[in-house]
């Protein structure tokens, strides 16, 4: 089996979709000849032609709004927004239109479409390129939000997103595009939406994370085990909306302690929702207050501040240890 980066795994998934389903179109800014600014769509236009893979005018609302129309009229659009902050330009089409058409039409018209977009920090991009606005989208009803943490899941989740009968926002963490390689099957397979994965089993504390923060959580878990014999379980949320509440509860019921990690700022972030889920299902299993490791409630850090501001292994380790203090 070939070892692929996440960028290659997504490219492969897109090629498989274009190959097996003529309803699939891939489009966005610079996705054609240039293969996308992260080269995720590299070679696809050459292989499948300009009718299937094409550049759009530089207009995000137009990209998402016309994808809504395409989906209603029988296609399976996969739209790319160049960077997540620019998805706010198409926020209205995503939230009030794509996500609401099924409800508003009594189920007569549906919008099976995927919006792919890079997000997250740590790669020193210009400002306003890495803001983590995922919670804003996760709060929309009728929209699914997915954020893979590795190449294998990225491919399987993307296929599942294309199969899904409703719009899916597919968040690709920029730091993961090329930072790790994994064996990825060449054939089509799906990783189910709405299901978290226990990526490291443990007994003492549950660490919940998604995207690039999963790797951070795994590193922290390995270190606290080595240093102090703490057995930390790491749960990769994978789908941010709807959350896998059963998996969150099952893990906390087992460990009695929890840490939630995300790069996005704290207030109103997804950690708040995970903690609310813990309260609703597992409050009496808790042995310690739940910890959050997040960015602070200020702007997403400029490149010169990323290392200071963004969550790091030391902070996750400290949070884990705090949950175990007597």
């Amino acid at each position, binding site marked *: 089996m070939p070892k692929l980066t996440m960028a290659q795994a997504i490219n492969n998934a897109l090629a498989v979709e274009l190959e097996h389903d003529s309803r699939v*179109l891939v489009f966005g800014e610079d996705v054609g000849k240039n293969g996308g600014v992260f080269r995720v769509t590299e070679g696809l236009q050459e292989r499948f032609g300009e*009718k299937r893979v094409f550049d*759009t*005018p530089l*207009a995000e*609302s*137009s990209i*998402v*709004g*016309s*994808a*809504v*129309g*395409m*989906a*209603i*009229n*029988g*296609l399976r*659009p996969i739209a790319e927004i160049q960077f997540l902050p620019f998805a706010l330009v198409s926020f*209205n*089409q995503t939230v*009030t*239109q794509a996500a609401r*058409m*099924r*409800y*508003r*039409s*009594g*189920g*007569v*018209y*549906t919008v099976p479409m995927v919006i792919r977009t890079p997000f997250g920090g740590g790669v020193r991009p210009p400002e306003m390129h890495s803001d983590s606005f995922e919670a804003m989208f996760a709060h929309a*009803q*009728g929209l*699914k939000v997915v954020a893979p943490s590795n190449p294998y899941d990225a491919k399987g989740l993307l296929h599942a997103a294309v199969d*899904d*009968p*409703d719009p899916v926002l597919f968040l690709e963490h920029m730091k993961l595009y090329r930072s790790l390689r994994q064996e990825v099957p060449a054939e089509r397979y799906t990783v189910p939406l*709405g299901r978290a994965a226990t990526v490291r089993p443990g007994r003492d504390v549950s660490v919940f994370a998604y995207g690039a923060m999963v790797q951070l959580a795994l590193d922290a878990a390995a270190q606290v085990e080595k240093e102090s014999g703490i057995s930390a379980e790491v749960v990769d949320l994978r789908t941010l909306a*709807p*959350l896998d*509440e*059963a998996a969150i509860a099952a893990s906390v019921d087992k460990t009695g302690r929890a840490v939630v990690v995300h790069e996005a700022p704290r207030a109103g972030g997804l950690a708040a929702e995970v903690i609310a889920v813990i309260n609703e299902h597992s409050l009496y299993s808790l042995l310690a207050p739940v910890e959050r490791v997040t960015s602070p409630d200020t702007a997403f850090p400029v490149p010169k501040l990323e290392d200071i501001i963004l969550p790091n292994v030391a902070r996750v380790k400290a949070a884990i240890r705090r949950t175990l203090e007597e």
Partner: protein
Amino acid sequence: MSLIADDTLYQVLSPTGEVVGSVPAIAPAGHLNLYRWMVFGRVFSDRMTALQRQGRMGTFAEVKGQEAACVGLAARLTEEDWLMGSYRESLAYMVKGVPLAAQLKHWGGYIPDNYPFEARCLPFQIVLATQVLHAVGIAHAIKYKGEPHVAVVGIGDGATSEGDFNEALNAAAVFELPVIFVVQNNGWAISVPRHAQTRVDSFVRRAAGFAVPGLRVDGNDILAMIGAMDTALDRARSGGGPTLIEAETYRMGAHTTADDPTRYRPPEDLELWGRRDPIIRYRKFLMDRQLLTDLEDEQLQDDVTAEFEAAVAEFEALPPQDVAQHFDLILGNPPPQLARQKAQILNEQ
């Protein structure tokens, strides 16, 4: 067509009903059908407003004065063509095949679950101008599939200031899509007059800036609307790309039943546009051509009123809105947490 904007007003019938242009080919039964829809539109608008005043209907947006534009933009479409618009296109939707029962449910505060797929009309839009991009996407799919169909989209003069309208014109031109933009310029966006919306003196000129050919049409002249739509539909079906039609009309009623136009509208406007009434003008044409008699006209009024009242009786006999639907329609495969929330609300019933 030249992309140099030609804003000459296209007219077939003068406001007093004289023929001043070439009459499009329409069979006698076709004429009567158009007229019937316009009369129905007036009855629909007046009766819905009255029902709202009696507390029997939700907030309603009047069609009064815009019957020719609404009927004209929809009348020549086939079943496979698509139509989307705002609340102001309710009459156009019914011409396209959305039953009155669906409009009553939508305006009446139910989930509008009875728009038939075959009508190919998206639930009328509330977040203005978003529908214009949906039309572009639908047209993109039509072109991709190689179908001879067209997407038609209605929008008000005010909503043309939204980004989505401008993005849509641009994308339609770039991809040469079979889409027709119909701007119902009714003079007002709630209380904001047309001239405060843009300094461009006609929307046809706006379209020219995107390389989209345009036609400026007397929107109170049903025959001009039909002629313009025929031109635009031919262009779209033969691969000629998008067209913008500016239908110059006037909102004779309030913006909605929640609006009081006496706060901002000069009364002389109503007098002026009353003399340009689309129904009076077409009736004169039909009578001049012996296609309609006074007696038939009276009968028609009674028929459409009876049709409306029968539908209202059915609407008022509807069971209450199904609560479960509220949970079942948001996602194709709702998550377990939504099932729990549903059970909780249903248990309280």
